[in-house]
């Protein structure tokens, strides 16, 4: 008999409400329906009635975790349309803020993934190491998130010399912890048997869905906007695009953790090598034109398109977040897998999806609730525990 497991759509921890209906036969997922659109806010339409300066603030509200990737893509689009030059120092500041965001976003995911798997130590470690990052963000920008740093032509705030030094210190302290976290995952036999071979996405699947970011890079597809279409100061510092050929959830975990190491490296290099000078070229107009801007958000490419008619607001504004492309890969990743692995597979694309509280199993015929969300998390955690015992750990 096939049961239906509804997951979602709302939870306070999610900024992107999604609703999955898993069709389950025994323990195996046989089909999945994906529904979105529960919280459509009409931001593209709103943007048509806002000035370019206001739009940067508006798009910052699209996402609560990767809040700075949308403003960067947005100013890139405006600068592309208007052929606007940006001072060197501003490019470095944009890079620092973007990488701090990647660090705290990936650590947030690592913590949640740990919790889903019954590794609450990982959850507590990852979120503990995240705190100094949010503190330094608050010192530089005035906020733990939603930094309001970007503007067409530059950035709104400079980074003070003392904060530059503190950035270097925080990154030096963070690096050994990130490596420890990575080694803890890479050496753990239980995590290997729990995550390896689970939620497979082949490079062809990535190409079919045009998937992005760590989801693609964990299938060995080396795409990264920061390297392929350089913006900000990414072409001015040395760093590596992290890929993994595993195609499974383990590979996605490794890619994200190693990206944290690279991000810390980039922040430190930028803080050390930031040139002095202006932070804003103060552009005054955007001529009639089309502009495209994109940026590598923690979850993949964020893409913005605008059409200017020469007034102070766009005739059309399009914003596409990475999860829009990544979410459909779940159809290939989750079918055929077991229900106790579904939580971590759906969470593996990092759709800011944390809504286990809303999970419940219904009997497809009677509609009766048979399993609660807590039951499903417990099933996932119990599977880890079982494997742990088998390994004699």
């Amino acid at each position, binding site marked *: 008999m096939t049961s239906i497991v509804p997951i979602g759509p709302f939870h306070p921890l999610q900024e992107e409400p999604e609703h999955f209906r898993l069709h389950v036969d025994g323990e195996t997922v046989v089909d999945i329906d994906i529904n979105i659109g529960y919280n459509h806010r009409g931001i593209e339409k709103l943007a048509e009635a806002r000035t370019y300066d206001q739009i940067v603030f508006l798009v910052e509200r699209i996402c609560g975790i990767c809040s700075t990737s949308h403003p960067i893509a947005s100013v890139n689009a405006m600068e592309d349309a208007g052929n606007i030059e940006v001072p060197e120092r501003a490019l470095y500041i944009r890079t620092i803020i973007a990488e701090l965001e990647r660090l705290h976003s990936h650590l947030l995911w690592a913590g949640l993934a740990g919790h889903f798997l019954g590794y609450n130590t990982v959850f507590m470690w990852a979120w503990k190491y995240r705190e100094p990052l949010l503190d330094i963000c608050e010192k530089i920008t005035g906020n733990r998130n939603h930094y309001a740093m970007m503007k067409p032509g530059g950035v709104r705030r400079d980074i003070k010399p003392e904060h530059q030094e503190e950035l270097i210190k925080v990154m030096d302290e963070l690096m050994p912890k990130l490596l420890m976290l990575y080694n803890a995952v890479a050496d753990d036999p239980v995590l290997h048997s729990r995550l390896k071979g689970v939620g497979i996405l082949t490079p062809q699947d990535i190409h079919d869905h045009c998937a992005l970011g760590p989801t693609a890079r964990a299938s060995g597809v080396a795409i990264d906007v920061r390297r392929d279409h350089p913006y900000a100061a990414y072409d001015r510092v040395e760093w590596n695009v992290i890929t993994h050929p595993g195609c499974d959830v383990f590979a996605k975990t490794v890619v994200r953790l190693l990206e944290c190491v690279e991000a810390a490296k980039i922040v430190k290099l930028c803080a050390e090598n930031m040139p002095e000078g202006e932070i804003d070229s103060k552009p005054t107009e955007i001529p009639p034109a089309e502009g495209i801007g994109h940026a590598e958000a923690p979850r993949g490419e964020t*893409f913005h398109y605008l059409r200017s008619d020469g007034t102070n607001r766009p005739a059309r504004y399009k914003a596409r977040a990475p999860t829009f492309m990544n979410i459909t890969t779940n159809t290939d990743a989750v079918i055929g897998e077991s229900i106790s692995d579904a939580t971590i597979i759906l969470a593996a694309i990092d759709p800011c999806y944390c809504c286990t509280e809303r999970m419940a199993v219904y009997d497809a015929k009677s509609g009766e609730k048979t399993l609660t969300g807590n039951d499903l998390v417990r099933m996932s955690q119990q599977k880890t525990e079982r494997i742990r015992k088998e390994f004699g750990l």
Partner: protein
Amino acid sequence: MNQTVADEVIAELGSKVKNVFVHNRRRVYIDVDPEDFVDTAVYLWKDRHARFAIASGLETTAGFEVVYHFAFDRNDMILSVRVKARDKERPSLPSVAGRIKAFAFIERELHDLLGMDFPGHPDLIPLLRAEDWPEDFYPLRRTNVGPDGKESST
């Protein structure tokens, strides 16, 4: 380098390309007729390994158009393919979703928000549209009749 890739693609597409606009070395725009678009998209995605980034649909004074953005990640270039719908009253463009999975969601979104039809789409059900929205209310259109019956234009 970039120019070469764009030139190659445009040469290969031949008479399908009706117009070319080079904004700068990283952004190239081409115009393609609706009946040629499916072949163009499959060629770019399959033969040239371009990544379909997204499509932006809009209503202009001349009618409806959709700009499909293809990223050439190895060449630091975005090729945008502009396709204009012929019918201004009931805009419609051929669906690519049956050939390339990545088009499925955005075509559903354009159907919801702009009222663009995609004949051939395997499952053109609402994606973002609320259940209680009135029929024929498409928020991204220039002129709309709102739920209160008043006409608004932007």
